[in-house]
């Protein structure tokens, strides 16, 4: 047992170091791509926490926007530094999520899916409608970048390290939450809701807890994103982006922690590789989506095992002949 722990720690350590030196080998604009990718990893992992209880929401992208707008307004209107507005962004997203729990968690399944979509769209349209203070469709621009010593966070590599460190900490926390008693209860709420209730678990509380926690982390991700781009607009968090989150998690595999990460990374990299195809790109994406859901229902994460099984069988056949 200690052996596997050591091996896992070493593997994660190597991965971290590899990531840390990766941007130095990339083209300039791919450094930006990498920053957004790492942020999106936090988005999908936090989304997975919400889905642990079996409820698929369509409001996660908007909650990211709540954090983004929160941090943008706090740093521009109230003049707060990034180091204060950033954690507050998570807090704001969590508070909004807590308020939304009352209507949303009266619903389950399909009703929750559509209800969360409606609530999210209403919030997003409000950003467009109320030009003061949200700036309408053009949103808020000239959002200051973080200040620390003499580091220039407008440059991609310093900001990448900032993002990498923050996201790694968040992933670690999310991982601990999932493995804790709370996390196990969340799983129980999903798979054995009535049983969980019969032993005194209040499923409403746990669903809300997952939703609020997930929203907190995605709010942080939103703030990370807009303090780099310098601009926040309603379009960044529309249903189109929400659909991508959903796709990443499902194609990657929502049953494990790393499945969702795998989905975000593989699909984003594929998408970037297919840039050449311009207007054909979404169709390639759609085909991958359909193909993987039909033939890899457990997600990309199940691919190694399936390959092993296929090749294992062949090996055995060869042995026999």
């Amino acid at each position, binding site marked *: 047992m200690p052996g596997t722990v050591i091996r896992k720690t070493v593997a994660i350590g190597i991965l971290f170091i590899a990531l840390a030196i990766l941007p130095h080998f990339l083209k300039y604009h791919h450094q930006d791509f990498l920053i957004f990718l790492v942020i999106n990893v936090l988005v999908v992992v936090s989304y997975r926490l919400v889905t642990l209880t079996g409820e698929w929401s369509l409001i996660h992208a908007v909650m990211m926007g709540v954090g983004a707008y929160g941090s943008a307004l706090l740093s521009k209107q109230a003049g707060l530094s990034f180091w204060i507005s950033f954690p507050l962004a998570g807090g704001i997203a969590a508070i909004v999520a807590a308020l939304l729990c009352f209507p949303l968690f009266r619903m389950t399944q399909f009703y929750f899916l559509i*209800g969360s979509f409606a609530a999210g769209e209403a919030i997003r*349209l409000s950003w467009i409608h109320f030009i003061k203070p949200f700036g309408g469709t053009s949103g808020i621009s000239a959002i200051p970048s973080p200040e620390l010593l003499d580091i220039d966070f407008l440059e991609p590599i310093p900001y990448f390290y900032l993002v990498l460190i923050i996201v790694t900490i968040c992933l670690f926390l999310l991982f601990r939450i999932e493995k804790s008693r709370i996390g196990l209860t969340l799983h129980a709420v999903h798979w054995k809701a009535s049983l969980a209730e019969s032993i005194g678990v209040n499923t409403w509380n746990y669903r809300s807890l997952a939703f609020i926690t997930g929203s907190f982390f995605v709010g942080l991700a939103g703030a990370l994103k807009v303090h780099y781009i310098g601009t926040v607009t309603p379009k960044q968090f529309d249903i189109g982006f929400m659909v991508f989150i959903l796709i990443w998690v499902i194609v990657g595999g929502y049953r494990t922690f790393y499945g969702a990460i795998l989905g975000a990374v593989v699909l984003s990299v594929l998408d970037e590789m297919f840039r050449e195809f311009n207007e054909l790109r979404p169709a390639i994406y759609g085909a991958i989506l*359909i193909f993987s859901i039909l033939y890899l229902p457990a997600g990309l994460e199940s691919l190694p095992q399936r390959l092993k099984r296929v090749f294992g069988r062949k090996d055995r056949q060869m042995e026999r002949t």
Partner: protein
Amino acid sequence: MELFLQSIVNGTIQSGFFALAAVGLVLIFGVMGVVNFAHGELVMVGAYTVWFLHAQHNTPFLITIVIAISLVTVIGMLMEKFLFRPMRDDPLGGLICSIGVLFILQVAATLVGGDGPSKQVPPPFEGTMVLFDFLRIPYQRLFSIAVSIAALGLLWHFLTHTKLGWALRAVSQDREAASLQGINSNRISMIAIAVGAAMAGLAGALMAPLTNINPHMGHNVIITAFIVTIVGGVGSLSGAVIASVLYALYHTFVTTYFNGTVATISGLLIMVLVLIIRPTGIMGHRVSE
């Protein structure tokens, strides 16, 4: 007063499109348990067919409507056969598949029509009917609402007066009980999606001369269809039709007397409210999970 009456006319005409789009969504969800995210794109394909055949190649309008309906029906049936049927036990899988179809159909439309400006179809029926000197109804819209009502009437007749329609309703109420009665649910699903897609194709064909046609037009259609579906009651066709009329009138009046964005935001909030107070909608029953 004149504005009030004109708004009723405007709202009624709009309700026809809402109803055609929503009825298909309800039928597919009710019978198959799948949220068809690509439903707006089915409407879009219907509109593109009319643009391509009628506006670009001078095919008579009425013939293009029939072709649009047939094409969209075939797309729907292919979706059922190759995507929704294998995913029958996994509603989430069905949803994801429909998102994949959504992307593919949007790209197909871009390939046919290009990435340029929105497409326009000159109205086949020109002119405007003027009633009492102030109520104005373009003949094109009059035609659309008449066809919409006829199509919905036909659907109602099919569901209530034919054996197949009865089977369809039985499956949407309780799939297992229906299969115990010897109803082949795969066949019923195929019919449900064919009818639902045909309605979407018709909605698109009727909308084509009246709106901006572009690959992304399905987005607005699906939002409206969701609202109408929820308010009317998931799985209830009559609920969807009633909700279409109510929502179209509501949206028209708020847009006329206040503002369109306010109309949409408040519409979404009403939908959330309905979900909280009466999750089954105004006419719905709980769909067995």
